[in-house]
C-alpha cells in the first residue's frame, strides 16, 4: 500500500475543460425536472425543508392542544377531534419530523463532511425522500380531510396500544392509516440507513481514519445501525396488528392466546432506541458546533465516541421502562431500571466534554451558541427527570401522567430541536447564499427558550397532582388549572419564537450550489470547503480531525483541483471508495445521475400503502407491481462494467470495479440482511413470548402435524443450497448460462420449500384466526414469503443478466449479492423449520 501524499499531488493550473466537464456531469436538471435529481445537496434541501414543514404542522396541532387545555372543561375541540389531534401531533413529530430531519441533515452534509462527492447510492437516498414526502403529505392530509369529512385520522395515541386499536375498538380507517402509513416511513428510514452506513464506512476522504472522522459522522453511523436493529421490531408489530385488524389473526387478543403486552414489547423495543436515534445525531451536531465556536478542538473525542457507541448499545436494553406499571414481576423491572440508570452515564459524559471544550477556548456568543447553551440546560433537566423516572417506585407515580409529557419534551425538544436550530444558524452559510440573521436568531432563541420552559416546567407539577396524559379536558378544582394555563401561555410564546425563525429563514435562506456565504465561522471540517454540485472540486488527504485548521491552504488547494479526483476520469459521476478503518483508497465508484425510475418507485410505493389502507386491494396490487417494475428498471441500470484502472491524480491509479466483500453494494446487502435478521429475531421473540403467555396453546409432540411436509421443505432447502453452490462454482468458471439455470432452479426450489411447509400446516387444519399460536405460525410463513419473494425476483433478474452477458465471472457483483440474499433466506428458512416444528416437540406436552 503506497503511502498517501502529504502535499497536493496535482499540478495547477488544471486543464481548461476539466472543471467544465465536471460541472456538466454533475449538473442538476432544471425546472420541474428537478424532481429527478439525485445530488445529495438537492435531495438534502428538499428533505430538510419537508421535515421542517412537518415540524410546523405538528406544532400547530400542539397549539390546538394547548388552547383546548388552557381552561378546565374546554370546549374548543370535541373529544373525538382532540384524540385525533394528539395522536397526530405525536405521530407526525416522531415519524415525519424527528427521524427524517436528522436523516436529512445526514444526506445534506455527510458527503461533504467526509470528503466524498455524493452518497454511495444516490437514487436510494432520493427514493427514501420521495417515499417519505409523498406518503407523509398524504398521511398528514388525513387529519384535515379525515377528521373534517370522515373522522378518519388515527386516534389511538402515537404508540397505538391494542386492544384499543384493534378492529373492535377502533373500527374506523384511522388505525389502518397509521399502520400502513408507518410502512413507507420505515422503508424510507431503512433506505437512508443503508446509505449512511456504507457512505460513512466506505466513502471517506483518503487518510480519514475513524479516529479523525467528525463526531457527526460517528453519530450518523451509530444512528443508522440503530435504525437497522430497532425499526424491524415496529415493522413486525405493525404487520401483526394489521393482520389482526384485517383478518382476525389474534396476536394481541387475550381471549385466544394472544397478549396485548406483545405489542408493547415489540413497539418499545423499537421505541426506546428511537428516541436515542433522534438524540444522537443532534448531539453530534453540538460536538461540531462547539469546537468551532470556541476555536478549539473537541476535548475527549475518544471518550465521546465510546460514550456514543455505549448509548447505542444500552438503548436496546431499556424498553421495559415504558412498561413499569403493567404488572411485570419486580425483578425484571429492577433489571431494566438498572439499565436505564446506566445509560445516563454515557449521556452525561458528553455534557462534561462540551464544558471542557468551552473552557479550553473562548466561546463566541452567536445565535448558534445560544441554542447550544439552551440545549445544555433543557436536555440536562430532561435527563435528570429521566433518571427520576428510571427509578421504578417513582415511575409508578409519574408514568402516563403529565410529568412524563414534561420529561419527554425536555429531552426531545431540548435534545433535538434546540440543536437543530443551532444547526440552522451554524450551517446555513455553507449551503445558502445568505447566512441567517444573528439578531433574529437571538430573539428567536430568547422566545423559544423562555416559552419552552414556561410551557413545560409546570407540567411536572400537574403530573404529580394526578393529571394523566391524553385527556381532552379536566375538571376544575384538582389543582391542574393553574399549571395548564401557564403552560398554554408558554406555548404561545414558544410559537412566536418559532415564527420569528421562520420569517428569518424565508427571508434569508437561498439554497445554492456554488456561491454559498462560505466559511463565516472559520471552521475546521471539510463541509466548509467551497463546494458546487460536485461537492468539493478535489478530494484532499486528511491527516487531522480539523483539516482546515491543520492546513490553512487546504481550501484553496482543493478549489484549484490540486488534490485527488479534480475531474471525472471515467466521464461519469464518481467518488473514491476507501477502506473502513484507515480510509485507504480502494477503487473508484461510479455513481448514477438523475432519473425517473426511483421517483416512480417512490410514487408507486406510497400509493401501494395508501390504497391498501383504503382497502382498494386490486388498485394497490397494481401499484405494487408498478413499484416493482420501477425497482427493476432502476436496478437494471446499476453495476456498470469494469472500465479498467484510472488515474485519480498525482499518479494514484485506482480500479473502477470491485467485487466480493470489497464492493460497496456487498456492504449494502449485508445491511439489508441485518434488517431482515432483526425482523426475524423480533419474530422469534414474538413466537416464544406468546408461548410463555399461553403455553397450553402449543401443540406438544403428540399433537403436531406429521413431519413429512417439514422434511420435504428441509430437503428442498438443501437442494436450493446445492443450486446456490452450483451457481457460484459455474460463475467462477464463466459458464454463464449454466449459472443462470442454477440460479433459476435454486430460487424456485426455495419458493417450493416455503410452499411445502405452509401446505403442511394448512393440511393439518391449523388456521390462523383461531389462536395466537396459529397466528404466529402463519406469520412465520409470511416472513418466509417476503424473503423468498425477494430472492425469487432477484434470482430471475440475475439469471436474465447472466444470460445476456451482463453478469460474468469478473463482473459478478449482482451474483454476489444474490448469493448473500439467497444464503440468508436459506438460513432463515431452516431456522423457521426448526422453530415451528422443533420447539413444540422440544417442550413436551403442551
Amino acid at each position, binding site marked *: 500500500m503506497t503511502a498517501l501524499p502529504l502535499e497536493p499531488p496535482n499540478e495547477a493550473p488544471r486543464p481548461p475543460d476539466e472543471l467544465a466537464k465536471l460541472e456538466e456531469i454533475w449538473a442538476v436538471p432544471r425546472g420541474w425536472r428537478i424532481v429527478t435529481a439525485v445530488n445529495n445537496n438537492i435531495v438534502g434541501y428538499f428533505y430538510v425543508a419537508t421535515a421542517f414543514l412537518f415540524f410546523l404542522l405538528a406544532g400547530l396541532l400542539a397549539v390546538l392542544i394547548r388552547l383546548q387545555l388552557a381552561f378546565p372543561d374546554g370546549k374548543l375541540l*370535541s373529544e373525538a377531534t382532540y384524540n385525533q389531534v394528539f395522536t397526530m401531533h405525536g405521530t407526525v413529530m416522531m415519524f415525519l419530523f424527528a427521524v427524517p430531519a436528522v436523516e436529512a441533515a445526514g444526506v445534506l452534509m455527510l458527503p461533504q463532511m467526509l470528503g466524498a462527492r455524493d452518497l454511495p447510492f444516490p437514487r436510494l437516498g432520493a427514493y427514501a425522500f420521495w417515499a417519505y414526502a409523498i406518503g407523509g403529505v398524504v398521511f398528514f392530509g388525513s387529519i384535515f380531510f379525515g377528521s373534517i369529512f370522515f373522522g378518519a385520522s388515527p386516534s389511538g395515541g402515537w404508540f397505538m396500544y391494542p386492544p384499543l386499536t384493534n378492529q373492535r375498538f377502533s373500527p374506523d380507517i384511522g388505525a389502518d392509516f397509521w399502520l400502513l402509513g408507518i410502512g413507507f416511513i420505515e422503508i424510507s428510514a431503512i433506505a437512508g440507513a443503508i446509505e449512511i452506513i456504507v457512505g460513512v464506512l466506505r466513502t471517506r476522504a483518503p487518510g480519514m481514519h475513524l479516529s479523525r472522522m467528525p463526531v457527526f459522522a460517528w453519530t450518523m453511523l451509530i444512528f443508522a445501525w440503530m435504525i437497522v436493529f430497532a425499526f424491524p421490531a415496529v415493522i413486525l408489530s405493525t404487520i401483526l396488528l394489521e393482520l389482526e385488524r384485517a383478518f382476525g389473526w389474534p396476536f394481541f387478543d387475550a381471549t385466544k392466546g394472544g397478549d396485548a403486552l406483545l405489542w408493547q414489547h415489540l413497539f418499545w423495543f423499537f421505541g426506546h432506541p428511537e428516541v436515542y436515534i433522534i438524540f444522537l445525531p443532534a448531539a453530534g451536531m453540538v460536538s461540531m458546533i462547539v469546537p468551532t465556536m470556541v476555536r478549539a478542538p473537541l476535548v475527549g473525542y475518544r471518550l465521546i465516541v465510546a460514550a456514543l457507541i455505549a448509548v447505542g448499545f444500552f438503548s436496546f436494553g431499556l424498553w421495559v421502562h415504558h412498561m413499569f406499571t403493567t404488572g411485570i414481576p419486580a425483578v425484571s423491572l429492577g433489571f431494566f431500571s438498572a439499565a436505564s440508570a*446506566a445509560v445516563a452515564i454515557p449521556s452525561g459524559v458528553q455534557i462534561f466534554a462540551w*464544558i471542557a471544550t468551552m473552557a479550553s477556548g473562548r466561546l463566541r456568543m452567536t445565535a448558534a451558541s445560544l441554542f447550544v447553551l439552551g440545549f445544555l*440546560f433543557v436536555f440536562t433537566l430532561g435527563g435528570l*427527570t429521566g433518571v427520576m423516572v428510571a427509578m421504578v417506585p417513582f*415511575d409508578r407515580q409519574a408514568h402516563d401522567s403529565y410529568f412524563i409529557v414534561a420529561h419527554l419534551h425536555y429531552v426531545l425538544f431540548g435534545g433535538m430541536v434546540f440543536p437543530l436550530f443551532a444547526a440552522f444558524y451554524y450551517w446555513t452559510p455553507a449551503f445558502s447564499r445568505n447566512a441567517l440573521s444573528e439578531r433574529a436568531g437571538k430573539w428567536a432563541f430568547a422566545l423559544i427558550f423562555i416559552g419552552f420552559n414556561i410551557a413545560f416546567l409546570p407540567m411536572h407539577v400537574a403530573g404529580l397532582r*394526578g393529571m*394523566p396524559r391524553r385527556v381532552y379536558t379536566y375538571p376544575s378544582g384538582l389543582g391542574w388549572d393553574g399549571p395548564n394555563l401557564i403552560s398554554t401561555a408558554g406555548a404561545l410564546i414558544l410559537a412566536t419564537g418559532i415564527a420569528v425563525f421562520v420569517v428569518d429563514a424565508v427571508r434569508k435562506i437561498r439554497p445554492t450550489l456554488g456561491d454559498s456565504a462560505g466559511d463565516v465561522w472559520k471552521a475546521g471540517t471539510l463541509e466548509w470547503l467551497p463546494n458546487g454540485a460536485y461537492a468539493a472540486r478535489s478530494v484532499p488527504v486528511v491527516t487531522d480531525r480539523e483539516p482546515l485548521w491543520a492546513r490553512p491552504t487546504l481550501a484553496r488547494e482543493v478549489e484549484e483541483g490540486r488534490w485527488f479526483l479534480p475531474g471525472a476520469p471515467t466521464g461519469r459521476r464518481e467518488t473514491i471508495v476507501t477502506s473502513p478503518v484507515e480510509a485507504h483508497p480502494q477503487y473508484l465508484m461510479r455513481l448514477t445521475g438523475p432519473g425517473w425510475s426511483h421517483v416512480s418507485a417512490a410514487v408507486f410505493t406510497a400509493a401501494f400503502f395508501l390504497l391498501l389502507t383504503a382497502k382498494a386491494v386490486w388498485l394497490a396490487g397494481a401499484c405494487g407491481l408498478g413499484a416493482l417494475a420501477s425497482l427493476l428498471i432502476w436496478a437494471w441500470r446499476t453495476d456498470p462494467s469494469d472500465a479498467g484502472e484510472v488515474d485519480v491524480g498525482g499518479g494514484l491509479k485506482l480500479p473502477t470495479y470491485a467485487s466480493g466483500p470489497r464492493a460497496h453494494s456487498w456492504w449494502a446487502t449485508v445491511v439489508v440482511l441485518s434488517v431482515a435478521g432483526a425482523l426475524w429475531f423480533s419474530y422469534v421473540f414474538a413466537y416464544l413470548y406468546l408461548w410463555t403467555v399461553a403455553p397450553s396453546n402449543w401443540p406438544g409432540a403428540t399433537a403436531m402435524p406429521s413431519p413429512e411436509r417439514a422434511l420435504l421443505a428441509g430437503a428442498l432447502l438443501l437442494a436450493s443450497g446445492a443450486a446456490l453452490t452450483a451457481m457460484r462454482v459455474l460463475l467462477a468458471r464463466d459458464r454463464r448460462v449454466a449459472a443462470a439455470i442454477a440460479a433459476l432452479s435454486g430460487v424456485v426450489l426455495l419458493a417450493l420449500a416455503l410452499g411445502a411447509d405452509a401446505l403442511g400446516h394448512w393440511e393439518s387444519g391449523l388456521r390462523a384466526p383461531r389462536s395466537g399460536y396459529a397466528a404466529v405460525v402463519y406469520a412465520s410463513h409470511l416472513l418466509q414469503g417476503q424473503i423468498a419473494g425477494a430472492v425469487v425476483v432477484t434470482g430471475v433478474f440475475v439469471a436474465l443478466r447472466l444470460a445476456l452477458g451482463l453478469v460474468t465471472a469478473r463482473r459478478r457483483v449482482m451474483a454476489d449479492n444474490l448469493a448473500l440474499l439467497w444464503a440468508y433466506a436459506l438460513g432463515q428458512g431452516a431456522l423457521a423449520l426448526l422453530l415451528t416444528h422443533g420447539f413444540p416437540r422440544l417442550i413436551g406436552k403442551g
Partner: protein
Amino acid sequence: MTEGMTDGMTNLPDAAMMNALAPHGPEATQVATLTQVMTVGGALILLLVCVLTAVAILGPRSWKRALSGRDTVRWGGFAFPIVTLAALLFWSLWTMRGTERAAAAPAALTISVVGEQWWWRLDYRDAQGRRFAEANEIVVPVGVDVDLLLESADVIHSVWLPSLAGKLDMIPGRTNRLRLRADRPGVYRGQCAEYCGGSHARMGFELIALAPDDFAAWRAAAHAPRREPADEDARRGREVFAAAGCGACHTVRGTDAQGRVGPDLTRLGARRHIAAASLPNTHDARARFVARSQEVKPQSLMPPFAFLTETQLSDLAAYLGGLK
C-alpha cells in the same frame, strides 16, 4: 345508615386528595420521600452544570484551564454519575424490595375492580362471603391493607390513586394486584391513567376510607332490603325507570333490574359523584346525565334518553337519589 357518612369528608382540601406529594399511604409516602430527594438532588446537579458552564465561558483563566482537560470528563462524566446513580438505584431497588415483601402478606380486604370504557366495575364480598357489586366509588376501611384485583373488560386501563400508591394497569387477560392502605379517613381521588379512547378524560373515581365501624355498617347494608321510595316523585321515578328499560343495562338489587352492561345503581344515591367522578351527585346532574349522557361521556354505551319529559327526568333523578 349510609346517609351522611361521607358528608364530613368534603372537609379535606381537594388538592390533598390527589397529589403524589401529599401522601397518605405507605407506598406513596416512600415515593414522596424519594421524589423530594431526587428533585433536590437533580436541581443541585442542574445548578452545578450551569455553574460549570458559566465558569467555562466566563471564568478566570486559571479556572478555565482547570476545567479544560479530560479529567473534567472523567470526573464529571464517569466518576460522579456512577457513584450517585449507584446510590440512587440501590435505594430504589431496596424500596421495591420492601414493597414486594409488604405486599406478600395477605390483605384484610380484597376488591375486584374491572375497568370498562369508561367506568369502574367493583365486586365485593361481604362478611358472609356473599358478593355484591358496586361501581365507581371504592369504599375501604382506613388503616388496613386492601388488595384491588385489577382486570379489564375491554381495553387497557390503569388505576392510579396518587395520594396512596403507584399506578397499576388493567390488561385484558391478566389480573394485577394493587396493594393499598389509606392511613387517614377521607376521600382520595383517582384517575384512569392509560388512554382508553373516547372519554378517557372522564374516567375518574374516588376511594373513600372509613373508620372500621362505619365500613362494617356500609358493607352490611349492601344486602339490606330495598326501602320504598320516600316521596311521590321518587315513586313515579321508579315507574319511569322500569318503563324506560333501564333494567336492561343496570342492576338495582332487590328489584327486577338485573342488567350488567352498565354500572350497578343499587346505592347510587349515596355516592359523591356520578359518571365516574365526572359530575357531582346532585338532582340536576342526574337528570342531565340521563337526558344527555353523550355530552358528558361521549362514545359511551349509555344512550341519551332525550325523549323523557322534564317531569319524568326529575322524578327519575329523585328515585335514583333515594337509592341508598
